[in-house]
């Protein structure tokens, strides 16, 4: 593994990132009647070569975070720092350079690939737009090489997306993301829509590419088994906030936040004998609306440990162990031994 979790300068840093969307009423004269707090004060770092998993259920804000990092949304407050500089301050050339270095792979390759473009155009387009290659034969040669790296035959270069299987399309999406030799790739549910046998192939490919090209991934997913397999560190989100952040194996073996515990308990393991022995903790209720979040700890209405303090106190993301933070006032704080 190339990761060094204690690398001094993070490649990506989120500083108290907030993204609130106004809720408007009225047809002609619109007035703002509320705010949806999609992301509400998230701080994170991502070191070079590291894969950070960002997990949580629908509406927790994980995709809004990825849109803020990709400069598709402007944060309401806080900042996204890439290689130490705030991406909101970038001028045009700096933004272009930033867009070369940060790429994304999305869930559904059928809707994220242009159906009217052939594989050669899809994968070659970033090279032309960013002026990396200009003559057609050089682009074609580079596209063939990228297809080969992603396990695709060069014969596919003239195909359209609909002429390929789901797994092949996802490989094309990965080849396009790699075309500009990025530093950071945002994998937003990148393997979620794939069948089991194909999903395993794509996970292997992402791991091989990470090692070969020294890539950094922000891996957004809802399948916690996949996240455990691929990620060095994991951040768990609930209703726009981080509730737990830790080294991956530590988080999965000894989750501290009650939400993380319930989330892991809900994921079945493919082994009937283990499943028979396991405690199945079923979390009651549903995620509340982010336009009217609960007071205090946002998780308290569903939490088995919650009491009156939890309705009043907004918990901080405190250290609960080595390289392990959780936002819950009910967790016993360990006495940390000096590192």
């Amino acid at each position, binding site marked *: 593994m190339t990761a060094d979790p204690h690398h001094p300068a993070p490649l990506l840093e989120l500083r108290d990132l907030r993204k609130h969307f106004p809720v408007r009423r009225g047809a002609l004269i619109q007035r703002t009647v509320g705010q949806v707090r999609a992301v509400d004060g998230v701080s994170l770092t991502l070191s070079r070569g590291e894969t950070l998993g960002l997990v949580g259920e629908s509406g927790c804000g994980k995709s809004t975070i990825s849109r803020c990092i990709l400069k598709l949304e402007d944060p309401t407050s806080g900042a996204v720092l890439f290689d130490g500089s705030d991406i909101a301050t970038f001028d045009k050339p700096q933004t272009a350079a930033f867009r070369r270095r940060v790429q994304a792979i999305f869930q559904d390759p059928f809707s994220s690939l242009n159906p009217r473009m052939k594989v050669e155009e899809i994968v070659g387009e970033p090279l032309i737009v960013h002026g990396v290659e200009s003559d057609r034969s050089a682009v074609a040669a580079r596209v063939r090489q990228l297809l080969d790296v992603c396990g695709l035959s060069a014969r596919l270069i003239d195909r359209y997306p609909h002429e390929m299987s789901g797994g092949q399309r996802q490989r094309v999406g990965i080849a396009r993301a790699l075309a500009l030799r990025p530093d950071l790739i945002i994998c937003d549910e990148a393997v979620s829509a794939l069948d089991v046998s194909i999903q395993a192939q794509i996970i292997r490919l992402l791991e091989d590419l990470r090692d070969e090209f020294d890539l950094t991934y922000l891996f957004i997913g809802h399948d916690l*088994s996949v996240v455990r397999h691929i990620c060095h560190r994991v951040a768990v989100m609930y209703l726009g906030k981080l509730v737990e952040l830790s080294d991956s194996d530590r988080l999965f073996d000894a989750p501290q936040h009650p939400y993380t515990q319930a989330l892991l308990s809900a994921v079945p393991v493919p082994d009937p004998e283990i499943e028979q022995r396991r405690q199945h903790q079923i979390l009651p209720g549903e995620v509340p609306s982010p336009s009217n979040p609960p007071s205090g700890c946002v998780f308290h209405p569903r939490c088995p440990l919650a009491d009156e303090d939890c309705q009043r106190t907004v918990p901080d993301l405190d250290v609960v162990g080595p390289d392990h933070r959780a936002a819950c006032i009910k967790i016993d704080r360990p006495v940390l031994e000096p590192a």
Partner: protein
Amino acid sequence: MTALLEIKDLVVEFATESGSLRAANAVSYDVSPGEIVAVVGESGSGKSVTALSVLRLIPEPPGRIAGGEILFQGSDLLALDDEAIRRVRGKSIGMIFQEPMTSLNPVLSIGRQMTEAMRLHLGLSAAQADQRAVDLLKMVGIADPESRLKAYPHHLSGGMRQRVMIAMALSCEPPLIIADEPTTALDVTIQAQILELMKDLCRRLGVALVIITHNLGIVARYADRVNVMYAGSVIERGPAQEIYRHPGHPYTVGLLNSVPRLDRPRGSPLEPIPGNPPDLVSLPPGCPFQPRCGVATAGCADALPGLEAVAAQHWSACFRSRQVYEGALT
């Protein structure tokens, strides 16, 4: 025990632009009263087509049930006329689909949709049906059921809509419910709520449940028996514990080796099955899994293996199933 549902050599064909394909190719499986049976497979394996055939919901054309029998409580559902099959749907066999937003009618209230089947099949009056709908909504854990009857599907969350679907499926007390990917569209904590609810209700009411899924974890947690499908056929069948501990088909072994597991640390070996699932229009010769199979021999391309017993109540459709079962080939 006599089977409640017995599917025998079901063949379903679809006409496509590139030729006719067999979405179900001599599928057989059975369900006993009160048990939970899983049908597991990837896209195009034929698991949904088989389930839809049970209720005769295959669109014709382009689809066509070209052969086989589907015996439910002893009578062949494929021989029923339209009138008779309508009496089976909802009354004798309940169905729960993946996306409750598309299977509920968006312009009818929840109450109207719930009571329709009860009035038709059970002959209840409007007031009786409303009362039963309220009881059912309470049973599936929906708060304030009286006011929910007046709500429309878009007023409810995905989890709530799936609870309504379960209530509807149970409303005429059918002995069998077929659930096709019932929780695939739901978040993981809601998925656990819904599956736990389905299991509890079926066990309590003695309803048999067929769960169709691609998720091997769900199968392990809930199923008594498992049918594994590939390219339109059941290629392995057995008790859940058996199948996971001693798989008898190389495809099942491959599936189990390709799922990442929550209880295994980062970087645990993952052994994907090479290649892609076959094109049903032009299946490979012999065993359909043979081109992707790590233990195939020359003979595997010559003939199609049938299901053979490898242990008590455990069958596999592989010429080398005995060796696969004994773990001699890994």
